[in-house]
């Protein structure tokens, strides 16, 4: 039984990996197609339409971005050679393209540590993971507690109405509103609790400084995450409390919190994995807004900067990495759903 489950898991992972590979191929082809479909000379767009550009500079840009080759060859080089078209800038020959603005391999821009000691990737993780996990715990605890059999029915109804209202507020309004409110309250005072950035400019690198900068973005993200998660938990927990095995456990004298911890919470979390898996790509995409507003040096903001600078290979690679993150989260959540589901465990 265990062996067949493992083989099934491997086959699912293999199938998903093939999907991801196809997506990578498509996204890189899209990057090339976007550049090639530009009206006029695409090389001029890379130079941000400067007026007096020498012909040699244009030729160098064409060579640097592989525009002097047929699209298929350019794409094949991106994947299989990755040395010829992009080495012009500073002589690097690393795979998956060179960043034009950073003058280093696009891969290194994302994953190598910058001046502040942390890589862009790490900053993104620091911004998004803690509030997500905290919101998940809060939603599970509040949702399961509010729907316990002895609780009043008014509270879940009130929470559902509140979460419906909260969820209609677009993230851009929520984020900007928080910045405006806190900014007005602090009267522009940056001492103590700064609004923007991830580190103090004075060179303070302590943990307290990190927490100070992260507090407002975390709060905003949690205000966005908690209602969405709480709504899902409330709906599911209501059903799970009424399942026969939970009612039987209560009839045998189990306390409500033991039932909640032992029976209800795992099932609710298991059923939460499906909606969460569908939700993750939207969260990853929405990070662009949050990181832009808070001037956070994460991957999503790097994507916006690279797009503004027409740094096409860097933006294609970031898109591929963000897609991979969403893919990994979706796959892990799907496997967890199958594992935690009472029907899936036997499969």
């Amino acid at each position, binding site marked *: 039984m265990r062996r067949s489950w493992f083989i099934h898991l491997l086959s699912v992972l293999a199938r998903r990996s093939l*999907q*991801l590979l*196809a*997506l990578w191929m498509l*996204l890189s082809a*899209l*990057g090339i197609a*976007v*550049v090639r*479909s*530009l009206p006029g000379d695409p090389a001029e*767009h890379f130079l941000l*339409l400067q007026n007096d550009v020498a012909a040699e500079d244009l030729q160098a840009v064409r060579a640097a971005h592989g525009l002097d080759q047929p699209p298929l060859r350019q794409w094949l080089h991106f994947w299989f050679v990755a040395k010829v078209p992009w080495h012009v800038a500073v002589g690097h020959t690393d795979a998956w393209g060179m960043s034009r603005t950073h003058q280093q391999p696009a891969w290194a821009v994302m994953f190598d540590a910058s001046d502040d000691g942390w890589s862009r990737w790490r900053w993104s993780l620091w911004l998004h993971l803690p509030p997500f996990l905290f919101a998940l715990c809060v939603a599970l605890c509040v949702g399961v507690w509010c729907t316990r059999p002895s609780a009043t029915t008014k509270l879940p109804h009130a929470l559902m109405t509140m979460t*419906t*209202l909260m969820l*209609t*507020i*677009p*993230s*851009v*309004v929520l984020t*900007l*509103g928080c*910045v*405006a409110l806190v*900014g*007005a309250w602090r009267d*522009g005072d940056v001492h103590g609790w700064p609004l923007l950035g991830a580190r103090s400019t004075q060179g303070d690198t302590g943990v307290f400084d990190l927490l100070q900068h992260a507090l407002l973005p975390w709060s905003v993200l949690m205000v966005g995450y908690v209602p969405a998660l709480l709504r899902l938990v409330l709906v599911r927990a209501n059903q799970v409390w009424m399942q026969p095995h939970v009612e039987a456990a209560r009839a045998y004298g189990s306390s409500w919190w033991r039932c909640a911890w032992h029976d209800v919470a795992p099932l609710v979390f298991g059923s939460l994995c499906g909606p969460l898996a*569908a939700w993750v*790509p*939207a969260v*990853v*995409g*929405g990070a*662009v*807004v949050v990181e*832009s507003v808070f001037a956070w040096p994460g991957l*999503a903001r790097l*994507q*916006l900067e690279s*797009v*503004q600078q*027409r740094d*096409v290979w860097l*933006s*294609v690679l*970031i*898109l591929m990495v*963000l*897609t991979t993150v*969403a*893919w990994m989260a*979706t796959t892990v959540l799907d496997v967890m759903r199958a594992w935690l589901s009472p029907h899936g465990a036997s499969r």
Partner: protein
Amino acid sequence: MKRIHVLFVAAIALVLGGVLRDAPVPHVEDAHCAMQAAHLLGCDDIGRDLLQLLWRGTALSMWCAVGAAFISMALGVGGGVLAGHSAQRRRWVDAVCMRAADAASVVPVLPLFLLAAAFVLRGANTTTRMLFVTIGLGVLGWPSILRLVRGLTLELTAAPPVLAARGFGANTTHILRVHVWPVAMPMLLAHLCADVVSNVAAESALSFLGVGFAAQDASLGRLLSSSMSSIHDHPWQFMAPALMLVVCALGVQRVGMMFDAGT
């Protein structure tokens, strides 16, 4: 209750009509002017009437959102019916549709849109931008609808009335038109409204990031973006589009709940 729903629909129609208005003309001498009889909501940083900007901006955002939702719906319904209907006989069609939906649903929409829009929309006019945003959001929003419609098709085509109709010799078109569509429609309309809400948010986020509408077009996202520089001195310039965005989302969601209650 029904009167409220009619009012919501009328308000949405009124808002959508704002796209017919011309963009307000800037008067530099009125820049940041306070609320007064001539300018009920005051003026923005280059002296444009904020109320007119808000009406036109809301209309632009809403048209994009509604258009994109209809495009997603068309693609999702077509694919979902195809996948659901071929799940029994031509399983490879179902498998291709579902794997494509799986793959498309893990791509983050905003970064993909940023990449495409930044290159394609350079120097484009309002109509081109509106079409691009509408078609782009529409094309990227189909996977969830495909899954919903496929599930519905699978469930409904195995229902006793459908099996009976098939026994009496009814063809596929008849079954889809008479048995599947009437049951699926209220659910799809509710999903359409939810899609409009998320598209309004996505469009405003794109415009805020500077890749949707141009500055002179003043969609809701652009109004939010331009209000950021004076958010502490003139908070109303931020609050007006922000409130309008929330009201639009709530209104459309209310209409969606009306359809949902009918299922």
